[in-house]
């Protein structure tokens, strides 16, 4: 009788110890997860790296698209190495615009919508201008940063 009581007690002690360890595990797991940066970037970003200047210069039509939070952006290299960035989604039916160096316009291939280099809709069906963003070329890293706020 005494033997079985000791057995049951030691089982309970083991179980209690194991349970406490498991409990500590469930508490510490989210803490470690929090310390590790998430794979998905924060949605509400105010600045992103669009590409490097070298990549943009080497691109065939002098433009690159990039992700800015949940939006798609386009960074363009104009004559004289001027940089411009805009939201890349056409305001007509959500197609992606591209830069046409031959006409110096942003062009939507879906319905021939045209925007000038301030983002203003100048021809075709787009009802509104494209949002223009700020650009900054960091010569040390060669990165082109794009932000929605004041010039960086």
């Amino acid at each position, binding site marked *: 009788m005494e033997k079985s009581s000791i057995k049951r*007690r030691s089982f*309970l002690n083991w*179980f*209690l110890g194991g*349970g*406490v360890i*498991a*409990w500590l595990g*469930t508490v510490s797991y989210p803490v470690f997860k929090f310390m590790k940066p998430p794979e*998905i970037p924060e*949605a509400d970003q105010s600045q992103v790296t669009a590409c490097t200047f070298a990549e943009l210069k080497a691109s065939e039509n002098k433009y690159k698209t990039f*992700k800015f939070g*949940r939006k*798609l952006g386009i960074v363009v290299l104009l004559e004289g190495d001027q940089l411009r960035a805009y939201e890349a989604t056409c305001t*007509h039916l959500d*197609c*992606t615009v591209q830069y046409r160096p031959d006409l110096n316009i942003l062009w939507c*291939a*879906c*319905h*021939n*919508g045209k925007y000038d280099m301030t983002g203003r809709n100048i021809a*075709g*069906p*787009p*009802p509104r201008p494209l949002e223009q963003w700020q650009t900054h070329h960091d010569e040390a890293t060669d990165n082109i940063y794009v932000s929605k706020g004041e010039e960086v």
Partner: protein
Amino acid sequence: MRYLYKLLAVLVMSAVFSLPSLAVENNCQSCHADWEDEGGPASMWDGDIHKEVGLTCADCHGGDPTLEDMDEVRQGRSYVGVPKTVAIPNFCGRCHSDPSYMKKFNPSVATDQLDKYWTSIHGQLNEQGDAQAATCVSCHSVHSIQPAKIPSSSVYPMNLPGTCAECHANPIYMKPYDIPTDQYDKFVGSVHGRQLLEEEDLGAPACNDCHGNHGAAPPGLDNISAVCGTCHARQAMLFAESPHKEAYAKAKLPQCETCHSNHDIIQPIDEMVGVGEKAFCARCHDADSDSKGFETAAAISDLLDSLVRIERMAEATIDEAEIKGMSVDNERFALKDVRSALVESRTLIHSFDLEKVKPEAEKGMQLAAATHLRGLDIIEDYYFRRKGLAISTIIITLLAIVIWIKIKRFDNS
């Protein structure tokens, strides 16, 4: 002296208050308003652009507006009165074709409307003395004319199809011309009509965008792709570079219209391409006499089918992950790229060249497959979390039971 000042002040004030009546005495409107029903020129005139810019009835109809007797007005040398229907274009054109006169109101206004009108079918019929043919007032209304940019204007893009339909959808009125009268009904149900009239998208075409406005005429057989290409520029360019352009010209087939029709253009479906029952390609390219065209059509159709299938699969996976409460922002973004590749592949069909369609379709398929796999990973992660929650719940519950037994044991001892 004081009385003299008072008298002078009264005289000045009287002169000031009587100025409007001295400046404009328009008996036309006041008399016409007395005997006309509501909806007559006098009541409509208040909303007219011509009144807005300071013109009066006499500027178009002539006569002396200060006279009260209509017989006297009619005897005046400048009196024009109501023009005959066939004379209306020249009646309006007296001012609207005069750049130096029109410049006073708007320096950038067009003054070529009358010249264009004579090139239109309406103008040609008018020249033959056909009083039924549309003139300026048929579209712009009369005495309540408003610029095309004003939403209540009869020629505002959303109102224009209805304006054209007043004549063109009337079988009795159109009977002498032996042309169909179902264009409006077809247009309303078309992809363009729905976009313009239901979605209120002013970028969608109204009648004038394809037919012209003052020079309205059906597009010729050779320039249909130029008309459609105004908006569908890439498709038109690809078509113009394709072997179909020459083949269509030889066969006297209208370019875009052969596959897409005209007034009742529907949203194109992928089944239009290929060799199936609904496919347009198979109407000309059959397996026996034209195996190359037949095989190309079948191969392009297969590519599109595969891309659409895998895109739907990826979308369904991402939808499922989202319903389970997982974050799928990146995957939604990737789906946009897949969608772009699909749109581009569908556009490239107009080259009728498998080698052009294939790389874009395959790029889309790879993207869609990667997105689908990522979606499966996210769903797996969801189940891992659920299992983790179940295990930790069991552990915590058992722990609570053990603590309870321990406490009870301490109490007993």
